[in-house]
C-alpha cells in the first residue's frame, strides 16, 4: 500500500503512539467508575480518543489522494542540534559556571545554527545579553542567578 500523505501518515502514527503511551500509563492509576471517576479516568478517556483519531488520520493518509504526496522533507539537523544542544548546555552550566560563561556558550552555540558565524558578533551579542540579563534579573528583580563560576565565589 502506498502512503498518499507522508505528513498525515506520520502525524497519525505519532498521535496513536501518544495514545498508547498515556493509555498504558493511566493503568497505573485507579480508573474508578463513571459515578466515582478516579485519577486515571480522564487520561484513559483522552488516550482512547487520541488513539482513534491517530488511526483515522493514518487511514486518511493511506486512502485520500494528495497532489504531491505531502512529503515531510529533509530534517534540518544543523539548526536543530545546534539550538537544542545550546539550550541543554546552558541549563547544565548556568548553576555551575555562572551567567557570563553560560551566556557566551549559549549565544555562540546557537549562532552555529545560522549561515554566518563570526566570533566578533558572538562576543558582542553575548556581552549585550549578559549585561541586560544582569540588569533586569539579578540587579533589578534580585533573582538568585549566579553570575560567576561557583569556584570563584566560594
Amino acid at each position, binding site marked *: 500500500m502506498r502512503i498518499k500523505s507522508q*505528513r*498525515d501518515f*506520520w*502525524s497519525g502514527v*505519532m*498521535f496513536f503512539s*501518544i495514545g498508547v503511551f*498515556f493509555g498504558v*500509563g493511566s493503568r497505573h*492509576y*485507579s480508573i474508578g*467508575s*463513571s*459515578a*466515582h*471517576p*478516579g*485519577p*486515571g*479516568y*480522564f*487520561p484513559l478517556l*483522552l*488516550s482512547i480518543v*487520541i488513539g482513534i*483519531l*491517530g488511526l*483515522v*488520520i493514518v487511514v*486518511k493518509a493511506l486512502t485520500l489522494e494528495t497532489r504531491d504526496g*505531502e512529503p*515531510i522533507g529533509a*530534517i*534540518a539537523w*544543523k*539548526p*536543530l542540534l545546534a*539550538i*537544542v544542544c*545550546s*539550550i541543554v548546555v*546552558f*541549563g547544565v552550566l*548556568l*548553576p555551575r559556571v555562572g551567567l557570563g560563561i553560560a551566556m557566551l556558550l*549559549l*549565544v555562540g552555540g546557537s*549562532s552555529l*545554527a*545560522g*549561515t*554566518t558565524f563570526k566570533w566578533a558578533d558572538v562576543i558582542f*551579542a553575548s556581552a549585550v*545579553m549578559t549585561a541586560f540579563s544582569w540588569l*533586569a*534579573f539579578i540587579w*533589578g*528583580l534580585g*533573582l538568585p*542567578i549566579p553570575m560567576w563560576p561557583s569556584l570563584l565565589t566560594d
Partner: protein
Amino acid sequence: MDLISNLALGLSEAVSLVNLAYCFLGVLIGTAVGVLPGLGPLATMALLLPTVYALDATSALIMLAGIYYGAQYGGSTTAILINVPGEASSVITTLDGHQMARQGRAGPALAAAAIGSFFAGTVATVVIAAFSPPLTALALKFGPAEYFSLLVFGLIGAVVLASGSLIKAVAMVILGLLLGQVNTDTISGTPRYSFGLLELTDGIGFIAIAMGIFGFAEIISNLSKPEAQREVFTRKVTGLWPTRKDFGMAAPAMLRGTAIGSILGVLPGGGAMLSSFASYSIEKKLAKDPSGFGRGDIRGVAGPESANNAGAQTSFIPMLTLGIPSGAVMALMIGAMTIKGIQPGPQVMSSNPALFWGLIASMWVGNLMLIILNLPMIGIWIRLLMVPYRFLFPAIMAFCCIGLYTLNNNNFDVYVGAIFAVAGYAFYKLGCEAAPLLLGFVLGPMMEESLRRALLLSRGDWTTFLTRPLSLSLLVLSALLLLAVVLPTIRQKREIAFVED
C-alpha cells in the same frame, strides 16, 4: 445616580497621590514582567505579597491589581515581537500579531493591542461598577456540567481557528489535554505521569511549552530555510501608527472583543484566555474575507487583545462580590485582603466602599497610565526588530533560556523547553498546528475537574450535560461551530472530486 456617585468616590480615592504612585509602580512592574517571558504576574505578586503588611490596604490592592493587568499588556508585546506569548492569554496574539510584525507592521499591531486594551479596560471598569451583582448571579448558575460544556465550547473554538486539517487540530487539543494531566491529581492527590521526577508533580510549566514550541522551534524552522526565502522581518517598516483603514477594521473587533471578554471574564477559571480564543474565532467567522487571518489581520490582534483585557478585569467581579477566586491571581488578591483583615465577600462593597470603588476606579487610571507608557515605547520596540536576524535569534534564545531558568530558579524548565523545541519542530514538519495544543494544555486540569465533579453529582450519568439547559445550549453552540467549519471542507472536497471526474 448611585453608579456615578460610587465611581466618583472611587476616583477620588484612586487619584490620591499615594495611590497614584502605587498604581504606577504596579503597572510598571507588571509591564516589565509581562514583557520578560518566564516570570509571570503570579510569581511577581507572590514575591511582593509581604509588602502588603507595610502598605495601606487600598494602595496594596491597587498595586497588585496593576501588576496583573500590566502584565497582560506586556505579554502581548512579546507575543507580537518575538512570537513568544508572555502570558497564557496572549497565545492568540502571536497568530496575527507576529505575522504583522514580520510584514513590517509591528507598529500598527502594537498600537491596536494597546488601544484595544485601553478601550476594553475602560468599558470593563464601568461593567464592573454597574453589573457586579447580576453578573455574579449568572456565574453562580454555572455548575460543573456547565463548566465542562463551556470548556468544550472554548476548545472547539480553538480547533476552528486552526488553519490546517481539522482532525489534526482536534488531536492536538487532546494532546494538550493529556499534557495537562501531568500533575498531582487534585481530588485524590496522586502524582500522575511524573516518572518519579519531583519537578513534574506540579505539572509541566506553561511557559516551558510555549517557549519550546513557539520560541525555539520557530527559530529552528526559520533557520532551516535558505536565507533568501527566510520569511523573517522585512526591512521595510510601514508606519508606526495604524492607518484609517486599520482603524475601520479594528474598531468593531475591539467592540465585540470587549463584550465577549466582559461576559466570559466573570466565569471562574481561564476567563481572560478563553475570551481571547472566543473573540478570535468570532472575528474569523464574521469576516467577509477570513483568508488574511493567521497572515497578519489586524482584527485578529484588536479583538482578542480587547477581550483578554476586559476579561482580566471583570474576573475581579466574583472575587470582589462573592469572595470566590476565579484563578490563582485572584486567590492571591484574596490573600492580600485577608492579611489586611478584610473578609472578601458581598459585604466589602458596603463596609469598605472606599476600598471597593477605589480599586475599581484605579483600574481605569492604571489602564490610562499603561497606554501613556506603552504608545511611546512602540518606536523603541520596532527598532529592536531592525536588528539583523543573525543577532536577533541568539538574543531571543538567551532571553528565553534565562526566562525558563527564572520560572522556578532551577534548570529543569530549561530542559523541558529543549524537549518541546524538538516536539515543536516535529509538529512543524508534520503540519500540526501548535496553538490548539497550548489551549488544551491550559484548560485540561479544569476540564478534568469539572467532568469528574459533574459525573459525581449525576452519579455517573453522562446525560447530565444534555439535560441541563445552559450546558445543552453551550454544547449545541459547539456543534454548530464545528458544523460551520466541516461543511465548507466537505463542499470543497466534493468540488475537487468533481474536477477530477
